[in-house]
């Protein structure tokens, strides 16, 4: 069983490894890329600068530290690249190769094919990204033509669906998201832009990010959920899936039902549901199903949160390997409270 953890800085790598990370992943947005495509056109599915490294020197530092401990480093290149980006993205791959990464997380078929066909990248392994939308057993079969080292399943699969896919592909390592984020829409199919406010309000964004203010607020909200009410003040700043929409309903239903529909749909778009969800309670069953790798989301999170996430997941995996199911779920919630110092909010993927 492996823990794949996010990083955005060489300074935190030792802490992440000490906490129990078996593998690390990161992304890079260089200055030259940003000049052409801004952060909105990121070369990976995290459009915020704070989620990315700024250059390949930093990547090389991360790789060097990680490799000293036998930890692999994956470069995330899971956007889709258009004609004018073709040469640039190949240069990015070369740069990452030169920095010594162990492989790439990719969604673009052309890049998968390129990596497979080029002799110089034979040592780099391929992880098929969640953005490749492998929702069924036949899609795993499809991606096998690119000789992947591993395939990441979409978040929006139930335990039963994951179990079924794994049963049909016992020969293929599969990776599952278990902590944080949890977009309401499907990565890979979602075409909303993120990071718009970073581009349009760089001054405000820099203040927020330099002080880590957004993450500090989020951390307080995890601990004191009543503070989620504050989110009303910042709605509309960034992601389109949580904008403060005016909603008009066209429904062929009775008035009484209409008010319930209105209330529910407002809740659906509410940022108040934004506390990080997880599926660690399912790790026991996922291990039994043969899942090999558990991925944590949150490249832009503070190191202290990343370390807690890794420690929590590591403890949960150890527990799951030596426990009955009922005992596992109860104990894992106790573990959560012990490590994070606040109770689990019970916002689960698929439960």
């Amino acid at each position, binding site marked *: 069983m492996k823990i794949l953890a996010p990083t955005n800085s060489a300074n935190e790598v030792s802490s992440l490894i000490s906490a129990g990370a078996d593998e690390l992943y990161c992304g890079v947005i260089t200055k030259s890329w940003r000049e052409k495509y801004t952060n909105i056109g990121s070369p990976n599915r995290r459009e915020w600068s704070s989620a990315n490294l700024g250059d390949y020197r930093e990547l090389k530092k991360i790789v060097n530290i990680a490799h000293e401990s036998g930890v692999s480093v994956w470069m995330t290149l899971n956007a889709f690249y258009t004609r004018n980006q073709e040469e640039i993205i190949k240069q990015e791959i070369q740069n990452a190769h030169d920095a010594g990464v162990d492989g790439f997380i990719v969604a673009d078929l052309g890049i998968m094919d390129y990596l497979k066909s080029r002799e110089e990248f034979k040592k780099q392994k391929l992880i098929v990204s969640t953005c490749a939308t492998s929702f069924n057993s036949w*899609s795993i079969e*499809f991606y096998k033509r690119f000789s992947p080292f591993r395939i990441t399943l979409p978040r929006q699969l139930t335990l039963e669906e994951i179990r079924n896919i794994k049963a049909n592909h016992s020969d293929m390592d599969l990776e599952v998201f278990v902590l944080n984020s949890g977009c309401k829409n499907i990565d890979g199919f979602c075409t909303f832009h993120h990071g718009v406010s970073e581009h349009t309000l760089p001054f405000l964004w820099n203040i927020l990010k330099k002080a880590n203010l957004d993450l500090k607020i989020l951390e307080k909200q995890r601990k004191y959920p009543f503070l989620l009410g504050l989110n009303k003040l910042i709605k509309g700043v960034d992601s389109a899936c949580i904008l403060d929409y005016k909603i008009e309903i066209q429904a062929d239903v009775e008035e009484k039902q209409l008010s319930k*529909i209105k209330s529910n749909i407002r809740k659906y778009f509410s940022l108040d549901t934004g506390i990080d969800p997880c599926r660690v309670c399912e790790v026991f069953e996922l291990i039994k199903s043969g899942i090999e790798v558990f991925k944590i989301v949150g490249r832009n999170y503070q190191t202290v949160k990343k370390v807690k996430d890794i420690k929590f997941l590591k403890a949960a995996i150890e527990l799951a390997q030596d426990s009955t199911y009922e005992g596992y779920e109860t104990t894992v919630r106790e573990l959560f409270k012990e490590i994070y110092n606040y109770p689990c909010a019970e916002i689960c993927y698929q439960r």
Partner: protein
Amino acid sequence: MLSEIEKAIYYNNLPKDFPRCLDETRIYFGNEFCEHLIPGINETSQMIKLCKERNIKLSYLTPYVTDLGIKRLLVVFEFLNSLGFKGEVIVNDFGVLELIRNKKYDFKLVLGRLLNRQKRGPRLANILNKLPADLIEHFSSTYLDREEVILLLSELGIERIELDNLPLGIGRPSMSKIKASIYYPFVYISTTRLCPTNKAFRQNFRLRLIEDCKAECRICNFKLRHKSIPGDLILKGNTYFLYWDKLPSNLGELGIDRIVFQPEIPI
């Protein structure tokens, strides 16, 4: 110029009042976004009959699917195959493509609009003057138009790609080696299995739980309005759309030889 372009009309269901005469010479039938709404054999059979009576070609639309959806599609594919159907099947899931190839069905393979990965988020329209030209060019294009990807698609038996009519405009090489269709006036934006419409009808709901479908999308849709988005977002079922009916004037130059008209929200 439009007269040289094939016209198609899009139906999710059998239309109640199927017109006696259609301008269109092709019907798109099926579903792109939800495995619960895949038309079964009865509906498909009736649509085939209607098409035959009117001498109209049929393109069968398929959604992204779990293994359950694969089973449903397999039933329809076996049925189509038993009829000797050699028309188009539009795939929005590489698993479905793999299934069709594996079963050696004689369908013409078309890559659906979910797999072209065009970025359609409408918020950029209000900040175009703050964006570099390279970014706009990137967002008006699809990765499918890269030479190496076209080659790969050809090896996979893909004969056509489907595009959305982007408000930013469409950027395609003038001599693209793969034919394309363009859908209008509903531009696909995003989709989820955590169906908001389904949750809207529940007494209580868990945000991230995929729940049983009762096809609530058949009686309800939503308009979402925000100052950062020009026009309304339309939410129907599990999928978001934007309404945009201004087709590019240079379709021929863009290698687009078919327009697909969606008379209703396509779900």
